[in-house]
């Protein structure tokens, strides 16, 4: 009897905590979205409101009338993120394939090397990277944001872990007997088998690249090349100082696509986070 009562109290504690955390996760974004439909005057009267107003178009006009250009930022971010994701996934899988399928002299050492450089952050070598890019005059070139992704040690590691149990060497052997070239076998046989792993990694790679502020902030000086996170940073500037509604709208425009995509893919994302931590 007693244990039943304590467990009821515990269940209430659990669900109340969940409710609080849920509010904590949603409320800031809700407030942001609602405020993006309210006028500056309304926000100045009361910054918290749960019901939207009708100044959305007004705010949009003010927002886009200044330096903030969501469509341009969106396009640029899309180019960089898609490019980065494709490069990272294709070449990382290729590297993992080279380590798993072929038997060559230094492959063990090579894999240890990949593990060793996995945690070295790009941020630390940014000054040298910037000077290198600057000296060849490619600072505003998206390729400098995309090509470094070809060497993504973390993804190689993940792909190798996935490849070892799922890619059987017999299939490759029989394809060779049929006369298939090695690159053809990789593209047409190995890559399709890796699809589930590719999908998970693609989501994370894309989101990481989309949200990256540091590298683009340093390399991109031309306003036409600004990616979304740099575009967002313009909202902190003086020109938007008193345009509260527009600032909230600008923030909303950058968040909404992410939230929508997240709600569709959340199952894969949650599974992917869990998978990434289970070390094979």
């Amino acid at each position: 009897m007693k244990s039943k009562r304590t467990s009821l109290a515990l269940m209430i504690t659990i669900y109340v905590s969940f409710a609080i955390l849920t509010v904590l996760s949603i409320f800031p974004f809700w407030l942001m979205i609602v405020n993006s439909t309210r006028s500056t005057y309304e926000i100045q009267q009361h910054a918290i409101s749960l019901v939207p107003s009708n100044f959305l178009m007004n705010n949009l006009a003010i927002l886009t009338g200044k330096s903030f250009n969501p469509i341009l930022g969106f396009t640029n971010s899309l180019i960089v993120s898609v490019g980065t994701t494709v490069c990272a996934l294709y070449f990382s899988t290729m590297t993992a394939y080279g380590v798993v399928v072929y038997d060559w002299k230094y492959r063990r050492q090579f894999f240890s090397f990949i593990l060793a450089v996995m945690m070295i952050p790009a941020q630390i070598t940014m000054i040298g990277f910037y000077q290198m890019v600057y000296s060849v005059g490619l600072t505003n070139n998206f390729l400098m944001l995309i090509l470094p992704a070809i060497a993504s040690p973390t993804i190689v590691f993940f792909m190798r872990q996935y490849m070892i149990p799922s890619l059987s060497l017999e299939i490759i052997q029989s394809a060779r007997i049929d006369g298939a070239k090695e690159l053809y076998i990789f593209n047409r046989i190995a890559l399709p088998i890796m699809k589930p792993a590719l999908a998970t990694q693609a989501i994370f790679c894309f989101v990481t690249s989309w949200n990256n502020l540091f590298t683009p902030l340093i390399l991109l000086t031309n306003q036409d090349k600004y990616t979304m996170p740099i575009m967002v940073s313009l909202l902190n500037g003086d020109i938007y100082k008193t345009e509260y509604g527009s600032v909230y709208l600008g923030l909303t425009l950058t968040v909404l696509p992410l939230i929508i995509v997240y709600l569709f893919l959340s199952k894969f994302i949650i599974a992917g986070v869990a998978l990434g931590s289970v070390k094979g």
Partner: protein
Amino acid sequence: MKRKKKSYAKYGYLFCAPFVIAWLIFSLYPTIFTVLLSLTDFKGLGKVVFNFLDNPLQNFETILKNPSFKTAFKNTVVMWVLNFIPQISLALLLAAWFTDARYKIKGAGFFKVIFYMPNIITAATIAILFNKFFGYPMGPVNDIFTTLGWAEKPIQFLQDKTVAKGVVIFVQFWMWYGNTMIVLISGVLGISPEIFEAAEVDGASRLQTFFRITIPNLKTILLYTLVTSLIGGLQMFDIPRLFLNGGPDNGTLTTSLFIYNQAFSGSYMYNRASAASMIMFVVICGASAVLFFIMRDKDEAELAKLVRKQEKEYRKKMKEMQKGGTN
């Protein structure tokens, strides 16, 4: 006809070549370049010539004595520690709740999705959003304070160092506890269910199960979480940069922001920024080395140990035999 077995080894090299080339150009070269720059007098915008300093470590000395760098380093560590402790505690508690079959949490999937959500949103956006929330005179937080009568007139929250730091810590915590929770849940699910069943049969309480079984079995994953979080925390940039750009009075200045400011905002002290980068590089490498040690293949490591042991014994025997021979 005699046919030699075809060797495929060269394809191994070919398939790994793009990775290696990209790594040499975009990782190794910039690293070496950064090291070199940290030993020079290289500063100023658009310059290409530089000289090595007579005292090669002068930049390092300057940086280590720089009060802003000291503040930045202290802030970085403090903000990481104060966000990590509540983050891992809450994540552990939630993981225990989610994985305990006795609770049968309804809507577990929904809650996981909601708790993880802040992690997916652009940090730059979140930083500015929280800046607006604490705005003066009429941000939402001031609205709450004045409406509820906690304050008579609006407060300039963001001019207070402690409040500013607290907000950065909270945002980091808020963005990452969901991620840590999911990692820990997958860790708990990896523990053999028989252990939990045995504990239940033996009449262990929930607290006992949690402290005696769950936590000891999660050791590796907890360590992994700790080190990855530390490496990430040491590079904290987006939020302090866009929340208050390190202010007020360097209250939220982090080392990454310090490096950025040295090199790219006004002063163009590339040499000093490089030196500061290298200091952080050493700190992060230390943390990475620990992680590498944890993550390497356990069986492989044990096998290598065994081999070494055998070799040692073999050599010992050989020596003894030689000794025996000469005697």
